[in-house]
Every structure is written in C-alpha cells, then in structure tokens.
C-alpha cells in the first residue's frame, strides 16, 4: 500500500502516492482557465454561488415579545418610581413643621387679618371642600384606570400571541410547500418507475 503524500495544509487535495497530485491540480486549473477565457465561467458567477447562504426558516420560539420588556418590565427600572395616587395635600413631616410655624405666628397673623378672618375662613373651607371633591372624583377613577391598564396589557399579549401564531402558520405553510415538492418528486419518481417496470415486463 502506498503512503499518503502529506504536502501540508496548503494542498488542495491529497491522495495516494501513485497518483500525481500536481498533475491533477494543473489539469483542473487549466480547465477552469479555459472556461474563464472562453467567457463561459465568470468570476462574478463563482463569487455569487460561493457566497450564497442557506436561509433557514425562522423558529417561532425565537419571536420576541415586543411589549413585555418595555411596557411591563418584571424588574424595577433604576431611577423610576411608580406614581402614588393615594396622596394627601399635607403629609408627614411637612405637616408637623407647618403646624409649629403656624403656632408661632398665628397670634400675630390672627391680629393682622382679624378684619378678613371670617372671609378667609370661609374661603379655606370652600377650597378644602373643592379639593376633597376632586380627590374623591380621582379616587373613583383609579379602579377604571387600573382596569384599562390591565385591558391594554391583555391586548398587547393578544397581539403578541397573534404574531407568534401567524408566524407559526407561515412556517407551517413553507414546510407544507416543501412537503408538496417532496411528494411531487416522489409521484414523478413512481410514474417513471411504473413506466420502467412496464417497459421491462413488456420486453419479456
């Protein structure tokens, strides 16, 4: 048995000792050169075919949910605090400080505003009632806002599921097309086979 020629990784082919590799390579190069010179084989065509890549059908599991990560993040986004709708006009520490200031200055201010005190008191009560009504109205709206938010989220999920299902259908359609092609080939093959059998039988 002959030894293999190991001409290094630069060689296009390797085979047994009895076969002249260089002769084969020269012959191949000559053939290609002739075709190129005759204008039959163009470098552009070669490159085009070489660069052609398979385009695999997409995998429906890879279809991303476009809404989820942006609109409904599962993790807290840094620097973002959800807006609290359960607020009061004066709360906590601010209320205490205001109370203290009021205590210090109230005798003086009462004296100064004595002529308008009743009017001011009336105005304060009126404003307070107005705010109360507004807050009450807002609080009544909160469940509706939440409901709408959930509804929109549901719609987004529905849209995403629709995209996934349509993609699945498209992929399925492409696969069915391939299966039809395979079936067509098989039917054609069977027809040819049938003809060949008939020919053989008829001969006999």
């Amino acid at each position, binding site marked *: 048995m002959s030894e293999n020629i190991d001409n290094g990784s630069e060689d296009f082919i*390797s085979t*047994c000792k*009895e076969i002249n590799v260089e002769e*084969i390579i020269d012959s191949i190069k000559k053939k290609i050169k002739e075709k190129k010179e005759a204008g039959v084989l163009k470098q552009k065509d*070669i490159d085009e075919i070489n660069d052609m890549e398979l385009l695999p059908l997409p*995998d429906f599991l890879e279809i991303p949910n476009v809404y989820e990560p942006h609109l409904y993040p599962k993790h807290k986004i840094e620097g973002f605090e959800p807006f609290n709708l359960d607020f009061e006009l004066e709360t906590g520490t601010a209320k205490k400080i205001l109370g203290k200031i009021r205590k210090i200055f109230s005798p003086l201010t009462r004296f100064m505003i004595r002529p308008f005190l009743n009017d001011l008191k009336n105005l304060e009560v009126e404003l307070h009632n107005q705010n109360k009504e507004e807050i009450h109205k807002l609080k009544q709206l909160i469940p509706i806002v939440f409901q709408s938010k959930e509804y929109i989220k549901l719609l987004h999920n529905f849209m995403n599921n629709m995209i996934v299902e349509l993609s699945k259908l498209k992929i399925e359609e492409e696969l069915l097309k391939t299966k039809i092609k395979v079936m067509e080939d*098989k039917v054609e093959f069977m027809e040819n086979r049938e003809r*060949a059998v008939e020919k053989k039988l008829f001969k006999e």
Partner: protein
Amino acid sequence: MKIHQFLTSYSYGDAIGNEAFEIRNYLRENGIESEIFSLFYHPKYSNQIINYLEYDKFSNEDNIIIFHFSIGSPVTKKFLRMPDKKVIIYHNITPYIFFLDYHRVLAKDCYKGRVELKNFVNKIDLALGDSKYNEGELKEMGFTNTGILPLVMDFEKFDRKADPVLIELFNDGKNNLLYVGRIIPNKKIEDIIKIFSFYQKYFDGNSRLFIVGEYRGFERYLSSLYSLKSKLEVKNVHFIGHVPENELISYFKLSNLYLHMSEHEGFCAPIPESYYLNIPVVAFNAGAVKETMNKGGVLVNKRDFVKIAALLEHIIRDSHLRKKILKSQQESLKKYFKNKTGKILLDYVRNLT
C-alpha cells in the same frame, strides 16, 4: 460471559444501530450471549431489541455492558448505575452549534451529551472510540483506559442484487454523483449542491445528483436546501429520502462518484461502503474523514467549489486515474472487514475479564 449493548435509539439504516447488530451477531457466532437494550426503537424491531429499563433482570457483576454513546439521554444514568463491567464506544457527538438554526431539541441533547460524557470518566472500565479522532477526544476529557475500535461493518449485505427497476430507470448514460447520509446541517448538503451546480453548468450537463438519506425532523433544513436548489436553477438533484438496503445498493451501483463535504464526522460509514462497491470517493477533510479514508480515495483540503467540480469531472473522465483511485480504495478497505474489527473487540473484552 455475557456481553450486552445499550443504545439511545435504533433507527433503520442508522450506522450505530447497524454496528450494534453486527456486534451482537458476531458475539453470538462466537458463543457469547448478547442482547441489545435501547430507549427508542422502531416497533418493527421489538422482537430483537429490549427496552433499556428492563436491564435490571439481566444485570450481573460478571457481565460486560457496552454503551454506544452519541447523544445525551436518560440511558446514561441507567448504564452508570449498573454493577456490570462497563465499556463505552464513543461515536462522537455533533457540536450543538450545527443544530441551533434547525432543531433546538437536538441541539440541547448534543450539548447535554458532551456534559454527560464527562460523567463517565473514572466510572467505566474501558472507553473505545471508533476512530483515532474520537479516541483523542476521550483522552482530552480525561479517560485513561482508551482504545480504538473501527466501526464493525458487514459488507456482505452489499453483495445482494440491486433493484433492477431503479437500474433500468437511472441507467441512462448520465453521470451520477452520490451522497449517502442523513440530511442534517453538519453534513453541508448545501456545499454538495453548490459543487454540483458548477459541475452541471460548466463541466457536465449530462449529470445527476442523488442525495440519499433520512430528512425527517429536519424539514426546515430540507426546505432551505430546496430553496437553494431553485435559486441555483440546478436540475436533476434528487432528494431520495430513506431507502431500503436493496435500493441503497442500486444507488451506489448507479453512481460514478461518491461526494462527501461534511464538516464534522466521527467516522463516516458511507466511505468504506463506497470503497467496497468500487465507487471513487471525494471527501472533505474534516473530523475523522482522513482517518476513515485510510489513504484511499481523494481527500479535499479546501472548500473551493469550482475546483472541486473540475476535480470531479477529471476523475469521472480519466479512466486511468479512476483505476488508480479504486485500487487505493481496495487496499484501504481491508482494515474494515468484520472479522478483523470483531476480533479487536473480543480482545478488548477478554482483557477486561
């Protein structure tokens, strides 16, 4: 002494399954009791293959169990829990990256397979690779007691008569190129089609390409291959699918050349099969291909499609060169005869006992 074998899956025509059958037959011929246990198998073989979960009834410390390892599966756990002497035959695992675009489940199983393989280190008595390439991977992973067992193949089945109708059908003077194997991404069928398109357009218009092999589970890959075929406007490319043995023999006998462009191979059984049926082989040098070619045929080191197409034409036209290639292949084939590989297996096994 009893020697039993474990498989993850046995499918008809599969090289690993065929090897398991050949080993079982060889062992039985030599008076050794032997059964095959598998997780998945075709119902057709339910009288020949036993479910792997039933092995407990057969288990014995004096037994030797051989696991044909090629993918991650629950069989690994069962195998490792058994008290019997353990041998694995590593057929290599296709890198998961090839399957990412086409078969996520298989990609996951292949990834798991490589992880599982590490679990065998120091837990088995012998690790065999069906090529030096596979043995090298075993050594890299830390296996110490390793060896090489070339795929046990039965070439006698190729002595059967070919399907006369197929011969009648395709024996029409066209030059036929052949690829045999599963239609999966690592086999680079797209490269074979590209080469054939150059071959047909610029060197031999009177030609045909047979792509014979199973594509079930890889319909998305097949679909892209069909698109490529129509994009290239190449004619006479036949995706034959899975065929019974007598039809496979016909395709081999009808072909003028066997072309293999796979990017990852742990062994590549169709190469010795082509040698046996006297078909010149042109194969790309990847994985264990060079070793399997065993200095026969023509090994291509670069993916230059036009040059490969011109090379095919040169081999098909030049009868003198063709004869030389076939002669080299006949010499190389001697390594793969059943009695030789069967004896190697028995020697390994006897050393264990």
